[in-house]
């Protein structure tokens, strides 16, 4: 069909349609030009909801393990070959000892400043030597004093003799005087010779003693120098030991555990085994039963047993007031639940045998079905 592009009043279809399409297109271009974006997608975070009871019963182990073992522990492949147990209050590690010195070196070092002084009084190396020296000294002194006293005596005697001789000479003959003088001279010479010999001997002894002491001191110094120079392997080892050694023993746990328990790395809960749990429940129920007075309306025995939430301290006292977790809808059920609460409160310090103490985390929170019919 040939479209007539001239406007025909009886057939305006083409123009009407064209104009309408143009209008719709224009409107769509304006209206649909803005593209609305999708809202930003939020990523979901997986959340696991656990009860108080479950939290307190988290056991030690690994999250990927299959089951909770009887004795929950994390996996450990190796243990240390030796473990040290120390008394309380002691350091966990030994502090390494400082390097030791040879005994002689210590002494030499101490004495050195003194030895450097001009008059070195060498210490008596041996008590016997010191004694001998002291004896020699004494002997020498004694000899000196003796000689002096003798000399004085001799002088006095000589003066006396002289005076005598003078007087004698005055009174007696000169020959006699001469003889006497000779005798005196002789005596004098003798005394002198004696004194000289004595002094000589003393000097000799002193000289020997000095030389001996000197030689000894020298020998000692030499020995010390040698000791200081000598390489002591023990000392070097100790010096090396002074550095901190690697403290790891390669252990991954306290004891070997080939299968990991289900749990977390930080959980410390010890789990009651079923029979122990049953026994504990029995003990508690028996204690509560003694305090329980059934309401009259519940005598029919068709009341629904309530579930109580009991929180216990380690000594058996209540951490907080017990609450009803679940109870029936009727007034009888509510009465029974209240009576049960009263019974729990009245029996408050529960007697928990000490064997259950390690498992406190397990019975800290108790959800008890209170079936006392």
């Amino acid at each position, binding site marked *: 069909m040939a479209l007539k592009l001239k406007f025909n009043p009886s*057939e305006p279809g083409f123009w009407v*349609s064209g104009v309408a399409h143009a209008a719709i297109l224009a409107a769509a271009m304006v209206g*649909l030009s803005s593209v609305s974006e999708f809202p930003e997608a939020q990523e979901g975070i997986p959340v696991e909801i656990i009860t108080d009871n479950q939290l307190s019963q988290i056991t030690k182990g690994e999250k990927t393990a299959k089951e909770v073992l009887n004795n929950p522990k994390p996996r450990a492949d190796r243990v240390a070959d030796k473990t040290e147990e120390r008394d309380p209050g002691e350091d966990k590690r030994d502090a390494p000892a400082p390097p030791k010195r040879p005994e002689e070196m210590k002494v030499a070092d101490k004495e050195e400043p003194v030895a450097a002084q001009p008059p070195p009084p060498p210490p008596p190396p041996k008590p016997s030597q010191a004694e001998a020296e002291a004896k020699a000294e004494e002997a020498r002194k004694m000899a000196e004093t003796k000689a002096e006293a003798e000399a004085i005596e001799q002088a006095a005697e000589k003066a006396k003799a002289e005076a005598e001789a003078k007087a004698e000479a005055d009174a007696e003959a000169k020959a006699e005087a001469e003889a006497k003088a000779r005798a005196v001279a002789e005596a004098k010479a003798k005394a002198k010779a004696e004194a000289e010999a004595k002094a000589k001997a003393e000097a000799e002894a002193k000289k020997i003693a000095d030389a001996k002491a000197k030689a000894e001191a020298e020998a000692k110094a030499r020995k010390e120098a040698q000791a200081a120079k000598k390489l002591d392997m023990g000392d070097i080892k100790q010096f090396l030991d002074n550095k901190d050694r690697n403290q790891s023993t390669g252990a991954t746990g306290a004891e070997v555990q080939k299968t990991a328990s289900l749990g977390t790395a930080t959980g410390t809960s010890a789990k009651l085994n079923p029979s122990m749990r049953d026994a504990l429940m029995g003990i508690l129920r028996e204690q509560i039963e003694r305090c329980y007075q059934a309401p009259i309306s519940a005598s029919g025995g068709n009341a629904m047993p309530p579930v109580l939430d009991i929180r216990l301290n380690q000594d058996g006292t209540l951490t907080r007031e017990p609450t009803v977790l679940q109870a029936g809808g009727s007034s009888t059920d509510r009465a029974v639940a209240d009576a049960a609460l009263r019974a729990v409160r009245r029996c408050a310090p529960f007697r928990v045998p000490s064997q259950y103490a390690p498992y406190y985390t397990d019975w800290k929170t108790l959800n008890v079905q209170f079936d006392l019919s």
Partner: protein
Amino acid sequence: MNPADVAQAAPVVHDMSLFGLFWQAHFVVKLVMVGLLAASVWCWAIIVDKTLLYTRTKRAMDRFEEVFWSGQSLEELYRSLQSRTPTGLSAVFVAAMREWKRSFEGSGRSFQSLPQRIDKVLDVTIQREVERLNARLTVLASIGSAGPYIGLFGTVIGIMNSFTSIAASKNTSLAVVAPGIAEALFATAIGLFAAIPAVLAYNKLQSEVGKLQSRLEGFADEFSAILSRQIDERMGHGTHHPANAA
């Protein structure tokens, strides 16, 4: 469009407006979109024209029937209608009257087969009128049935093209994949946009044509009955003009 070019252009932010969708599309897809848009324009042009034509025709029929049954002389009516090109009922009336008049003009009066001839003329005229009313409705039918397929063809081409681009750019993130697919789907959208009104209008207009046709046929039957009565009267009482037939 070369896939390598598309791959290079991939990081460019896509214009997601209608014009952007059209402009970034593949050549074939563009052609399909333009074709479908033109089809939509044509389709609506036909719808508007036909609706106006049928309204006009119906009003003319009402007016003609009013005049026809008002007791006016058929001769006068024929003379008044002869001046313009008749449509609808008037065309049927004029055709029958012309045949009638021809039978009385000329030397030999041929009454023998006049009713058959009049019937034939009436049939032909009705057929011509219905054909005139029905003209171009087939276009609507074609667009209604083929439009979605053409749009789908554009979509398939577009998606093929965008997958080639994805393969070339070695990037499968949704930001790269989505614009091409949106472009491709745009072709189907235009196809449906053209086809849905076409189908609805075709059904509606077809039923209108049916109604008009039955009305034409009813009038033709009535008119032919009147004329045959006139013929029988003439044959009985000699020659008379069908002056006051009604």
